[in-house]
């Protein structure tokens, strides 16, 4: 076993060898260097063909028509384009947006940006298990509401929101519905039609594709366009100017094709490993599961542990690459808003570990992680004062 062992697949996955090969072939292809928009000549048409093939591969995973896919640089850009672009485009119809405090910063910061443009934003709170009740979405809607943005799977604690129910509520109220699916694409079934999704943000790097490319699904029947954030060459039907990076989108397309093939089998395998790790660490006193016990994605396990300081816990876990599951990467950073919103104290929010699992994770590695975690907690508790220690 080579150390450290990777348990941070929710942050980023390795590039699948088949994806890397497809990208490599694209870069080495003598004709692949053409600008995909330069369809006037053969080089451009060849590159353009690869781009359109990849677009269809991505669209297939979410049951969307290929022409509803817009290439971006990342899910973060997709979130920005969806929220800012849709709000500006629909501003004549209203200036109210509904989202949740548990959303990714790319959503929350886009909403805060819009507040500076005199949009009003309602930030819903989840219940103690991290679930946004669809009825709270319904209750938050006003005649001024133009957009609801709720993520499919929470990136910190892995809970799954009832996207179909929220989508139905939005559709009935004629409000646009945006979903950040960075953590769910390739792991959970997504059907943009059945789930009444109008805008969907996608990432490549979360499912064994390359960094630097993402996509936005745009339901053209519900919203003809969004206000672009980038201006220039008019690529992507004028919604996202900038030369399309052929090899990047080819990589994303291949990653999505593989994800479609492996989703069910991969989810079963990863769920088994996630549950094995939980069984191992849940026996340690003071270890708490964050989020809903069953409505959770296969690849994320978030636990908080009492009686240990967060930074030291993470340092003691140097042999396994995990995430803090919070933004407190530096001494001055605030504890995670997601964890605070489900009722964890600052102290517990800081002593939170997010394990995330992938195709390469093995049972042996999981058992090693359990041992590391147990030893780290024991080490730190052995030197800590008892809670409420009274001094003579």
């Amino acid at each position, binding site marked *: 076993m*080579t150390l*450290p062992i990777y348990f941070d697949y929710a942050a980023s996955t390795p590039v699948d060898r088949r994806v890397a090969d497809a990208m490599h072939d694209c870069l080495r292809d003598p004709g692949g260097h053409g600008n995909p928009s330069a369809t006037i000549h053969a080089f451009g048409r060849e590159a353009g063909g690869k781009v359109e093939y990849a677009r269809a591969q991505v669209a297939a995973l979410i049951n969307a028509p290929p022409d509803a896919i817009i290439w971006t640089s990342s899910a973060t850009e997709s979130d920005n384009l969806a929220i800012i672009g849709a709000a500006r485009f629909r501003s004549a119809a209203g200036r109210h947006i509904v989202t949740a405090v548990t959303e990714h910063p790319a959503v929350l910061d886009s909403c805060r940006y819009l507040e500076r443009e005199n949009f009003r934003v309602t930030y819903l709170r989840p219940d103690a298990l991290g679930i946004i009740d669809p009825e709270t979405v319904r209750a938050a809607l006003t005649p001024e509401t133009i957009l609801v943005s709720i993520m499919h799977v929470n990136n910190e604690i892995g809970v799954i929101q009832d996207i179909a129910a929220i989508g139905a509520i939005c559709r009935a109220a004629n409000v646009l519905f945006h979903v950040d699916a960075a953590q769910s694409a390739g792991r959970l079934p997504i059907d943009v039609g059945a789930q009444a999704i109008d805008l969907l943000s996608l990432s490549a790097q979360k499912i064994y594709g390359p960094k630097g490319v993402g996509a936005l699904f745009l339901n053209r029947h519900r919203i003809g366009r969004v206000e672009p954030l980038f201006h220039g060459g008019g690529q992507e039907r004028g919604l996202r100017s900038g030369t399309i990076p052929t090899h990047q989108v080819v990589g994303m397309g291949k990653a999505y094709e593989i994800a479609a093939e492996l989703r069910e089998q991969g989810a079963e395998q990863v769920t088994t490993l996630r549950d094995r790790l939980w069984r191992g660490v849940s026996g340690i006193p003071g270890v708490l599961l964050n989020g809903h016990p069953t409505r959770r994605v296969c690849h994320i396990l978030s636990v908080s542990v009492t*009686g*240990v*300081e967060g*930074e*030291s816990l993470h*340092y*003691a876990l140097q042999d396994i690459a995990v995430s803090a599951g919070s933004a407190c990467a*530096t*001494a*001055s950073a605030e504890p995670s808003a997601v964890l605070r919103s489900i009722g964890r*104290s*600052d*102290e517990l929010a*800081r002593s939170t570990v997010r394990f995330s699992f992938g195709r390469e994770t093995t049972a042996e590695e999981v058992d090693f992680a359990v041992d590391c975690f147990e030893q780290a907690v024991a*080490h*730190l508790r*052995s*030197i*800590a*004062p008892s*809670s409420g*220690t009274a*001094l*003579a």
Partner: protein
Amino acid sequence: MTVSKEPYAPIVAEYFERVPLAGPLDDRGDDDGADATADLFSGAAGHREHGTEVIFHARIRDRRIEEIRYQVFGCPHTIAACGLAAEGLTGQPVDALRKLTPASLAELLVLPAEKMGRMLVIQDALRNCFLAWDNRGLG
């Protein structure tokens, strides 16, 4: 795998792992049956809810720190600083408890500026340990 930058200085890593002199001080007395806790003094500072809590326990005899231990809830720098302080204070005159400066610990640990407050917690705990001794009127 090549790690581009270690987040802590080697001395922090060493003291974090080894935690020399960590733990409570046992209350064993002398063989003559004297009060086992008569020369034990403790000083605490910080709050767990704020991320740092430190307690020093010292056995002080004849104005000298015969033994010192600590219990700590804190970041790796804080844990390492407690170990360094305890090692450095063992055998020193009792006045050393109030003379140890945060700057001296910070320099040894290559401490980020934003963490200086945690060294102040250690300083406060040591000073409170000194005060516990001083208030007993043994000086």
